[in-house]
């Protein structure tokens, strides 16, 4: 009898070592190691060689809600494929894939919502959001790039572009890079030609012109009008095709164009061409007025 009792106790102990089942709640007030006998966190899950998944959180029907696989790739509602975090969902059904709630207020740009780093976490480009609930202006998504003027592990601070609301235009894309001198803040390329792209806009060109944002003002008078006239006459218009493109165009060759309309970096500036043309027309108007007066004088004298 005593032997039977001891055998049953021994058998129960062996069962506990092989598989332990708890039908009620289990509470661990110390650390818990799953797959490890030396947990280094409140709960540590240690992978074994044969494991496909470290962590599975499943629904009542057993389908995976969250999976963390052996290569530390996580899937939410999906078996993780190539990405570190693979999120399933259907926007058509009203689902949002990723929501980031750490945005800045309008008056602050302390941190970012998303940082894009290299493998060691360095050189971080980033997207920052600014929000205000009281007005349109100040709400924005700002894009920053890292450059070597930033500390290696800091967030990049070169401001490149912003999608933003404003009190006057409601919403807009604001290409607003660093204040340093650059070749161009916005380059529009075609598939074959750098900066050879086409822009469609109703009111394409508007230059900020208030006098209070300008200094070193000087009126362009007769001398400049005559220079513009000489430059217009010196233009050598050509037809051409951009290399690699079939569309025939008309225009000028940078190397032949007068200095006043060249930007110094291979482009001919539309605004300068228009300004030259306006100066020429003003000069022509003066000459026409003088001719008209002279003809009137000659007519009177002829009478």
């Amino acid at each position, binding site marked *: 009898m005593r032997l039977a009792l001891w055998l049953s106790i021994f058998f129960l102990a062996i069962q506990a070592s092989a598989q332990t089942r708890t039908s009620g709640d289990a509470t661990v007030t110390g650390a818990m190691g799953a797959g490890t006998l030396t947990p280094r966190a409140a709960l540590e*899950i240690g992978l074994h060689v044969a494991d496909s998944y470290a962590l599975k959180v499943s629904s009542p029907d057993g389908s*995976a809600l969250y999976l963390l696989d052996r290569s530390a790739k996580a899937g939410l509602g999906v078996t993780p494929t190539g990405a570190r975090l693979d999120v399933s969902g259907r926007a058509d059904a009203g689902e949002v894939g990723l929501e980031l709630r750490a945005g800045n207020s309008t008056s602050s740009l302390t941190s970012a919502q998303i940082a894009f780093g290299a493998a060691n976490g360095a050189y971080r480009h980033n997207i920052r959001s600014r929000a205000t609930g009281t007005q349109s202006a100040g709400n924005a998504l700002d894009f920053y790039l890292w450059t070597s003027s930033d500390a290696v592990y800091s967030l990049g601070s070169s401001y490149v572009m912003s999608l933003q609301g404003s009190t006057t235009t409601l919403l807009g894309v604001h290409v607003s890079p660093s204040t340093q001198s650059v070749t161009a803040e916005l380059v529009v390329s075609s598939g074959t030609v750098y900066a050879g792209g086409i822009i469609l806009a109703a009111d394409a060109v508007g*230059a900020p012109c208030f006098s209070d944002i300008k200094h070193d003002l000087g009126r362009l008078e007769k001398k400049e009008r005559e220079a513009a006239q000489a430059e217009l006459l010196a233009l050598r218009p050509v037809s051409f095709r951009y290399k690699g493109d079939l569309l025939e165009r008309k225009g000028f060759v940078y190397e032949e164009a007068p200095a006043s309309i060249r930007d110094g970096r291979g482009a001919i500036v539309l605004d300068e061409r228009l300004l030259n043309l306006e100066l020429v027309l003003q000069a022509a108007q003066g000459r026409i007025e003088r001719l008209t007066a002279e003809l009137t004088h000659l007519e009177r004298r002829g009478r």
Partner: protein
Amino acid sequence: MRILPLLAILAFAQTLHAQSIFDSELWVSSKTGVGTSSPGARFEAKGTSATSSVFQVSEVDLSPAVRVGPDGTLGLSTASAARVTVSGAADAGDLALELRGGDLYPATSNYQMTAGYAGGTLYRHSIRSKHATSVSSNSLTFSVWNAADASTAIGTREVLVLLTHSTGTTAHVLPPAGAAISTYTLQLIVSNGSGVGGGTMRRKSEGTVSSALIKDGIRSLGPEAERQAYEDVRALRHVGFRYKAGKGRKQRGLLFEEAPATVRTPEKSVSVDRRLLNAELAARGLLRELAELEKEEEGLR
């Protein structure tokens, strides 16, 4: 004395079936199943219909640091409103999401973020980052999938590149290399919310790339081109109008249907560049005529 171990074991077994409390550490060297007797991972937590959180890692104050809800949403420091929701406060220096998989320039082997369609990997748009230790060549590239890509491939059409140069930064609207202009008739459209292409751009100046190095078939335009341009400018029928979409301000301009062919573009817009070129050519012709008249007038004196 012998009865004590038995009582202890019985008491232990009872705790196991009702509520097990481990006052010290618990080590499980095999698999752990919570809510399931057949764990499909090293650690599996399976919810029930009554579960409000299937898996949670709590902070010291018991607020959720990581929480998986029964609807399959993941919340980091918050309950989930989206599939993944991350809380934080940038004003306090928090960064919500950090992706460290960027390419080191000039490598372009993979992407940092893709956006697929309806729970699958179809039609994926992407954001790729490139990093360089120099001032130049740091970039964020936004690509869009289109029908020329395999349905499960990541889109290869680069649309926008934010790029650093040795002297600053540039936003580069950039269709994929090698694509013909006839394929991509417009590269940048600026709309105003009520009409496609009805927007306004503001900038200091605008240039046209013009070096002979990037051109083929260069041919001089002679007096005939000037005469044609003069006729085209004379034939322009300027109008005042408002765009139908919205209630914009009154504007001045041209009607595409009435504009001469020399200023019309294949994508049915009137080109400012071509209008300016025509005006320049016409003005040159006028100046020459004016000079001849002045010479004639000189002779009459």
